[in-house]
């Protein structure tokens, strides 16, 4: 370098240029209301800045610990098998639809669901954005961290504990709520699942933060361990997605082996 020495004026000019580079899009004054999370809602959350983003990785404050791909657990009635490579198949099987329920009918943690830890002070203020189709999935806050999705026991009333999962295979955090959920999540219109397992072995969860990346004009609404995937085309069997290994692409069509909600 250097163009000039550092001085206050240069710092101020830089900070102002970054902060005010583009106008801040209008805010959503309905953000306080409970809004059923739908796939399109996820896009709305992405906001006007979405086109600028090739960088955003995950929802702003979603924390769960290890990535799902690190821990492959089990699920009641389901023995998930995650393909490590694409088998030589001529007629790909239909996409397996799986419903994630980490609870027993009696309201205790289901056998095979690993408990990662227990958190307190939780509050679930809206329906899940990550798992829109699941009527028992919530978006919750504990401290400053957002957990989404968190699952309430199906059909239970006065729910004071939800199970928050990073993936169907990762185990759960039990989150104790400061006040019971007053109702089950309201009726949903979302159709796209929370979690996908692709034919190349990638596991992808729904992007629930601002600004999913766009590659070649395709919005990658799912964040995978490596890269991202579009919302699935469920008009065929098996379902397909456009998958990109990184922000530069190239995109390739892949089959969806499992779809979880």
């Amino acid at each position, binding site marked *: *370098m*250097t*163009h*000039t*020495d*550092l001085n*206050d004026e*240069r*710092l*101020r*000019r*830089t*900070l*102002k*240029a*970054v*902060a005010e580079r*583009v106008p*801040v*899009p209008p*805010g959503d*004054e309905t*953000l*306080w*209301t*409970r809004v059923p999370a739908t796939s399109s809602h996820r896009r709305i959350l*992405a*906001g006007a*800045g*979405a086109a*600028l*983003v*090739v*960088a*955003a*990785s*995950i*929802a*702003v*404050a*979603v924390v769960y610990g290890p990535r799902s791909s690190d821990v492959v657990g089990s699920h009641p009635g389901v023995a998930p098998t995650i393909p490590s490579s694409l088998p030589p198949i001529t007629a790909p099987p239909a996409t397996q639809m799986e419903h994630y329920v980490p609870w027993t009918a009696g309201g205790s943690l289901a056998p095979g669901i690993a408990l990662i830890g227990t958190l307190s*002070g939780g*509050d*679930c*203020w*809206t329906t899940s954005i990550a798992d829109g189709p699941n009527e028992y999935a919530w978006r919750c*806050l504990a*401290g*400053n961290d*957002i957990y989404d999705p968190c699952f309430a026991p199906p059909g239970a009333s006065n729910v004071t504990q939800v199970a928050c999962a990073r993936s169907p295979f990762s185990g759960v955090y039990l989150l104790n709520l*400061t*006040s019971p959920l*007053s109702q089950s999540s309201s009726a949903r219109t979302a159709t796209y699942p929370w979690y996908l397992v692709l034919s190349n072995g990638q596991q992808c969860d729904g992007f629930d*933060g601002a*600004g999913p990346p766009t590659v070649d004009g395709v919005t990658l609404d799912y*964040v*995978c361990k*490596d*890269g991202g995937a579009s919302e699935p085309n469920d008009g065929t069997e098996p379902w397909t997605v456009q998958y990109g290994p990184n*922000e530069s692409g190239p995109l390739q069509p892949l089959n969806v082996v499992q779809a979880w909600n």
Partner: protein
Amino acid sequence: MEGVVEEDAVQEDMPGSAPSSDLVTLYRNKRTAMVQLARLLTRSEAIAEEVVQDAFLQMHRRREPPENPEAYLRATVANLSRNHLRRLKVEQRWSPRERVSFNDPEIDETWAILCRLPFRQRAVIALRFYEDLSEAEIARVLGCRPGTVKSSLHRGLSKLREEMS
């Protein structure tokens, strides 16, 4: 940031309740400024919007309004921005920063160096030179001692000068 945000002071009523008129006014008056601050802290225009949205939701959930809503909001934005960046360190799946050009080599270079600073040093510089806060005010926003602000500012500016030389 410990102690800055009272995490247990949440509303008893269900989410979805109407926000207070004061909060709506704060939202209308300060949201843009908070998003601009969060852009500096998160290095992302899109993530900044999400951080500020969650900050307002946190304020809405409080049982009692904070004594100084604007200061509380600023502290919450700083806190959530830092949490976000912490997680990005763990989960580097996409590049964490948006790459933007300002068509001004000085600004491009200065911002690139600022982006490489640790969060606290960049936050102190942003709050000092963009928000024009005093060191005492910055300490309250970041939940640290004024001496820490002073040393972070010194280190951050030294690093900037060092990389420019």
